[in-house]
């Protein structure tokens, strides 16, 4: 079939319109708000001594019924360095057996804590509990949900079909799949939500000896982070232990902070906030735009499929055309 010059111009104009529409920022869904009683964690790398108490206790307290690592074939899913060395847990990164990990960044001689030159810093990685989580938006069967009140991002294996789209979607690579199980599931940090009923909170914060990880309402954590940025470097100040509103505080020398709290804006904001003396990119945290990828994706889908009106109109047209072109035959 041959197309006329006029058709070509029409097609070219159509392409231009598509380009304009596709690049339009209004396509994104509106920015999501923090849930009313959102809880989270503030991690201060300048206070972290890398003792890994949070990792051990995360595993211990999540391997019990209701925990994010439950059920397990045998006890607590430790990752031993070698099969014949069953002494200590030594995971290299997050996995379906390790939902919280302490990593170290080192540069040059690595002697100065929280310094970019010849220094080192620890970083604690686990689910960020995003305000607009990509995994929740991606999951086709609502296995991943964001709690409407606490904002905790939870997983239900009874809903999950194992498509792993959450893993593709998550900018932090948090959801982990059980690759070596015949009947696998996704594992991720659920902010110890199984412990709230008994008045407890995230195990990683409860067992942090220096106050590097503290649990609390996200609005309080945001205020605490801002307070820390305003403190004078080198002075001794009271830092709360375990929770942001804790009566237990320890006096600690204020380090040189980077003037940036990770998670206030990244990807639409997160309920896990981080502070550090070295750039977050050095600690392996991605540099994300303020607009959540979930908002962009949902914007496209809801523009095309709003009320299923466009597909219904298109179907009517298609069925009519098909009817017209088949009615003359025996087809």
């Amino acid at each position, binding site marked *: *079939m*041959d197309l006329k010059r006029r*058709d070509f111009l029409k*097609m070219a104009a*159509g*392409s*231009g319109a*598509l*380009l304009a529409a596709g690049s339009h920022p209004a*396509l994104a869904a509106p920015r999501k708000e923090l849930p009313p009683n959102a809880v989270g964690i503030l991690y201060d790398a300048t206070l972290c001594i890398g003792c890994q108490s949070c990792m051990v206790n995360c595993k211990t307290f999540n391997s019990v019924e209701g925990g994010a690592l439950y059920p397990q074939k045998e006890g607590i899913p430790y990752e031993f360095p070698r099969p014949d060395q069953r002494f200590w847990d030594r995971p290299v*990164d*997050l*996995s379906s057996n390790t939902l919280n990990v302490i990593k170290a960044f080192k540069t040059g001689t690595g002697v100065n804590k929280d310094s970019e030159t010849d220094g080192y810093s620890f970083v604690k990685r686990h689910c960020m509990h995003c305000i607009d989580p*990509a995994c*929740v*938006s*991606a*999951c*086709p*069967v*609502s296995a991943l949900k964001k709690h409407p009140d606490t904002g905790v991002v939870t997983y239900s*294996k009874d*809903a*999950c*079909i*194992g*498509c792993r*789209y959450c893993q*593709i979607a998550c*900018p932090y*690579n948090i959801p*982990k799949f059980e*690759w*070596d*199980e015949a*009947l*696998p*599931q*996704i594992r991720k940090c659920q902010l110890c939500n199984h412990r709230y009923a008994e008045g407890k909170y995230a195990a990683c914060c409860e067992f942090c000896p220096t106050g590097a990880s503290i649990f609390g309402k996200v609005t309080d954590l945001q205020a605490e982070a801002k307070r820390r940025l305003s403190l004078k470097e080198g002075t001794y100040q009271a830092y709360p232990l375990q929770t942001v509103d804790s009566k237990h505080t320890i006096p600690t020398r204020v380090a040189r902070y980077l003037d940036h709290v990770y998670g206030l804006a990244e990807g639409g904001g997160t309920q896990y906030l981080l502070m550090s003396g070295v750039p977050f990119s050095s600690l*392996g945290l991605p540099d994300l*735009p303020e607009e959540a*990828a*979930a908002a*962009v*994706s*949902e914007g*496209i*889908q809801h523009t095309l499929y709003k009320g299923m009106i466009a597909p219904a109109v*298109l179907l009517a047209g*298609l*069925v*009519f*055309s*098909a*009817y*017209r*072109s*088949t009615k003359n035959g*025996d*087809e």
Partner: protein
Amino acid sequence: MSHHETKAIGGRLLTTTFMAAVALLIVMAVLLAKRFGMGLGAVTNMNDGYAWGLWIAYDVLVGTAFACGGFAMALLVYIFNKGQYHPLVRPAILTSVFGYTLAGVSIFFDIGRYWQFYNIVLPWHINFNSVMAEVALCILAYVVVLWIEFTPALAEGLGQKDTAGKLNKVMFFFIGLGVLLPTMHQSSLGTLMVIAGPKLSPLWQTNLLPVLFLISAITMGYSIVVFESLLGSSAFKRPLETKMLEKLSGVIPWLLIVYLVVRFGEILMNGKLGYVFSFDLKGNMFLLENLLYIVPAVLLFPKEKRSNPGTLFLAAFLILIAGSMYRFDTYLVGFDPGPGWRYFPSASEILITLGVISVEVIGYLIFVKKFPVLPKLGHA
């Protein structure tokens, strides 16, 4: 379902090609036993960074795009009312039935909790924000529609002329649905990667992914019809349908031009040219992928070139490679979950994919030889 007549071509079924396909099928069965017994990690190289591998990129993405012949021909014959291409419809529907059914089946090899797959159709589970939900439901529905469209051929083959006749009276509805559903999910297969955000290279990440995936799927649909007709004619020693293919392939360069305008327009408008000429793996793959789109556009643009079966075959082949590469690049090459993650398919993964392809070959051979799919000679 047709003015023209179709006929089973008959002939010996157990050819060398057929037996080789059966051998690959047996290998696949053994490897699948391992996959279901020991988990995905036992047979694949997929990992928590590259959670999708060859099976999604080839079996689902490329597989369904190759299976767009039925969609593309229905669009032309029934929607734009170009009845002269009717003889090409039934063979196109056949490959679509197989392509889509096999893609659907191979999803079960890939998903971890396959025994709960029915959750995707339970309204209280469906997440209407999820692009995956739309893709899954839409593909599922389209597989059913394709089998309905193919039923007249089956019924005629089994001597049930009445069933075929009755079904043909309401076929216009399924034809309409059979154009709507692939329009929806072939575009959404592009949208699927929008949420990967910066994990997908800017060379492929764009809000126009749905547009590009849709246009390239339709283009691949026409190309597979041309490719298969020429290949089938040569394999089954039937006369070439050159006259019809020549006219049909006239639509291809225009589709390619629209695709390239959108593709490069987006790159230019968003200032991504630096990535194109960075001469790293991603930049080079982008150049190669788009060169494979440009060459067939140039080859097929002059009308007189389209009457040469060799040129037609080459152009169709290049488009199929280009579209496949675009899909592999968007899902694997351009996808970077961060430092430390690596993926290349394992031998078992590749063998299972070859097994899936062999099922298609076996099915195609049985159907064209035993059922009235290809045009009756001396008529078309």
